[in-house]
């Protein structure tokens, strides 16, 4: 399995912690206001808040050893550090489903998951569904049934749809609508999305 080391700590390999320490100390020396001197004394504590944490996870079959701030969400990690732009940010608050990915095979909203909480997990994004040039059956079905207009919600819809079938929640149109309700489509492609899912379910392929 390939291993990619991404350690985006800046050009000199210095962490923000070091940078902060230096800049605070420098400011304290030049202006020497009591507040800033105090800040320099508390340096250790302030810096700790910006500490990067080591994080190991697997994305689409590729193992990564990373370094992230605790506040980085899985969504931002995928898009901004791993440059996997397929997963979309719609609302960033769990309300639209555009950011849906699979974690250890389960669909979740990556915008509400802190990246550091995915230590050791296997993540699958829309980029990981196709095998080489061969599209995933759900991707094929969305194309065939025209399951989108602008396409912004589509990666999330497809990731969610794959699990909807796998979980056994795609037995009829009503059930599909209920179990796909976590994915909003502003363009209203819902009827075609339901048709695509019904076809994949009927096809009975292993997903």
């Amino acid at each position, binding site marked *: 399995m390939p291993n990619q080391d991404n350690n985006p700590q800046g050009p000199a390999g210095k962490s923000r912690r070091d940078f902060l320490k230096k800049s605070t100390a420098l400011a304290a020396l030049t202006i020497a206001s009591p507040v800033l001197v105090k800040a320099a004394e508390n340096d250790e504590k302030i810096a700790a*808040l*910006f500490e990067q944490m080591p994080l190991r996870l697997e994305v689409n079959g590729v193992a990564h050893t990373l370094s992230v701030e605790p506040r980085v969400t899985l969504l931002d990690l995928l898009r901004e550090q791993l440059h996997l732009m397929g997963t979309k940010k719609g609302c960033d*608050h769990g309300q639209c489903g555009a950011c849906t990915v699979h974690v250890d095979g389960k*669909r979740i909203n990556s915008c*509400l998951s802190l990246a550091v909480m995915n230590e050791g997990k296997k993540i699958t994004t829309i980029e990981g569904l196709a095998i080489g040039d061969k599209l995933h059956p759900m991707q094929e079905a969305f194309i065939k049934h025209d399951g989108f207009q602008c396409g912004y919600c589509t990666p999330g819809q497809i990731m969610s749809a794959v699990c909807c079938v796998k979980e056994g929640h795609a037995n009829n149109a009503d059930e599909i609508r209920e179990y796909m*309700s*976590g994915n909003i489509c502003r363009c209203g492609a819902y009827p075609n999305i339901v048709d695509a899912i019904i076809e994949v379910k009927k096809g009975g392929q292993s997903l």
Partner: protein
Amino acid sequence: MINFDYIRTFTTKAAVDAKVKSASSQFIAGGTNLVDLMKKGVTSPDKLIDINGLPLKQITADAKGILIGALALNSEVAENAIIKTKYPLLAAALNAGASPQLRNMATVGGNMMQRTRCSYFYDITMPCNKREPGSGCGALQGQNRMHAIFGTSEKCIAVHPSDMCVALAALDASVHISGPKGDRKILFTDFHRLSGDTPELDNNLQKGELITGIHIPANAFNKTHYLKIRDRASYAFALVSVAAALEISGNTINNAKLAMGGVAHKPWRLTAVEKFLTGKPANKETFTAAANMAMEGANTFGQNNFKIKMGKAAVTEALQQAAQKI
């Protein structure tokens, strides 16, 4: 989101110790409520204590009932074979909440601890006694369509948004808690609070305490129904919801439990109505009378006046649907 320290814990004791040590720390489980609130700036803990490494995921049943670990996922509980057959009211309430993705992240403990969805609580530029005690309540004279009609105070009219908790209140569950002073159990209906003078407190959990599990006693309810009324068919919080559990033999109601969601600062248990229902025939007349009784004492604030009519209809319908179950 303001940055924070993050630690992982693997025992209840370590989690509780860490919480006691750091005043502005918070536990994090699924993160579906906490991360949302942190992004909005509603809360900014300086440390997050990840409790997902704690051994609290188990669901274990015996003749006396079922114990659900605080870290069991909402989806796992809803899909659990024993829950589905013996406690279908809980499964139905869970499946009525949030979305499949969110239920795959949300835990039982986190669900109980979720904060209100009142828009004044969420908007940090607005007054809100729950978020900032003493700043006032924007909803009293403002946007209060989603708000409470029972047990309100002039300090806060927010509602508790959970569906799961409405079923647990009806099923006489109890909460298992671990804290710096040891372990304790309290009745589920005593867990959440009314807003009163201290709307900043949602529940009776004390400093450093962790929910470890929920126990539901075995029951003989053969007819149950969870009815949720919302602005769209799915993936929306309740305007009004009703959890109804009936034990019916022949046509007589031998035992009844009833709770409502979307109407109060806590899951609203209707014990007087339960007493009224006991021994009565299971028919439309009984259910309508029960629904009228359920709405007694309601107090509305303008935009939420409709909740009285809706609440009545919802109670009648939930009891009827329950009674019709095979």
